């Protein structure tokens, strides 16, 4: 696919090199001509000097026929303006923006621009690893607001209905692996010894989930 990347910094140049290596048609844009130096020798894609929301530059980079646009400059606002232009003016099918500040992520959500919010993501990840290091997510959704976690059920829960572990808006049991077979538990399914349970959990409720799972250790 044809991908236009705005911003040839550490992330932009790495993504560009990776995609180009996979055979994609990569066009990378940066305000500074010397940013080109971050690209690997023999980079097969094209480099365009200029702003990531300049019509002239974007059109020279072929935005009218691009499949994706990624805004990866060091400025949140430049990324927001570039991504919105790609999405609304040029109707690029896939648009992604990287932003640092949480407020920029909020603005992206308002504008319908999928954003990778690095500060928010980093803080959540570090917080989780500091305080909930035993709960390793199988999957993280969005910027880590919702996680999928698998855990062996502690013995004290044997015989209780799995649905009792649900906390409205915070924790939900989505799957149980029992004796090597997976099932989606019904409302009345009781927990059995050795159950491996998958929970969908809000990142803010990890403490609560750990409370359930660790209870046995504390008593």
């Amino acid at each position, binding site marked *: 696919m044809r991908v236009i990347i705005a911003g040839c910094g550490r992330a932009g140049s790495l993504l560009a090199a990776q995609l180009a290596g996979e055979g994609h048609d990569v066009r990378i844009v940066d305000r500074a001509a010397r940013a080109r130096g971050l690209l690997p020798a023999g980079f097969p894609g094209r480099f365009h000097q200029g*702003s990531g*929301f*300049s*019509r*002239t530059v974007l059109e020279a980079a072929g935005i009218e026929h691009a499949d994706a646009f990624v805004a990866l400059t060091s*400025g*949140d*606002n*430049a990324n*927001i*303006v570039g991504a919105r*232009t790609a999405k*609304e003016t040029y109707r690029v099918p896939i648009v992604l923006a990287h932003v640092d*500040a949480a*407020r*920029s992520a909020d*603005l992206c959500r*308002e504008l319908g621009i999928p954003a990778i919010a690095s500060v928010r993501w980093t803080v959540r990840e570090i917080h989780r690893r500091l305080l909930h290091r035993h709960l390793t997510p199988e999957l993280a959704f969005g910027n880590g607001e919702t996680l999928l976690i698998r855990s062996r059920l502690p013995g004290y829960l044997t015989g209780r209905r799995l649905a009792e572990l649900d906390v409205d808006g915070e924790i939900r049991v989505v799957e149980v692996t029992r004796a090597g077979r997976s099932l989606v538990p019904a409302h009345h399914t009781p927990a059995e010894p050795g159950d491996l349970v998958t929970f969908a959990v809000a990142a803010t409720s990890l403490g609560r989930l750990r409370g359930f799972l660790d209870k046995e250790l504390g008593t």
Partner: protein
Amino acid sequence: MKALIAGAGRLGTQIAQVLAAARNEVTLVDVDEDRVAALAGRLPVRLLAGDACDPAVLEHAGALTAGLLVATTGDDEDNLVVSLLAKRRFAVPRVAARVNDEENTWLFDHRWGVDTAVPAATPLISLIEEATGATDTVALLRLSKAGVDVIETAITPRSRAAGRTLAEIALPEGTVVATVVREGRPTVPAPGMRLRPGDELLVVSHTATEGEIHAAFQ
């Protein structure tokens, strides 16, 4: 009226001065704390250090009750985001934004919350410089929606006001000399300031016509 200006560069401080002189309640926000500190006490406006792209800063600056916001930073993307926030989050009735790079002019419209685009080529000071050729009074910029006219007049050796102090000049009702540009630099005019040929004045008035201003100075 409450006016909020984002960016305390040359254009931002000039607009702040003009609007304050026309008795508006002006807040000037700039992300550079040193610049804000340097302006303290030199402008009759409320100064605030902070990033105007942050809705919390805009709210603190009074965006909820502002009648006008002018985004004057040196980065077009920042001016666009400030304008968008002003319009979408705070419903500021009038939003003006400076276009730094002419190529970006097409972006400065309602999609980004901009009511008036201010091209870089025509900020206040450039207009004054352009107008220097004409010795006559030139109606520079009409902030008509604010109910205020800004009129520029240049002092020549033949002007009646040359050699007089500002206090000696009888101005029409509701008229203020906002700034005197001397040797290319805007200054805050004190009543004792003596006008010299070559001075350029920005006069702000609610009521006076160009002819009346002309009569007072020329």
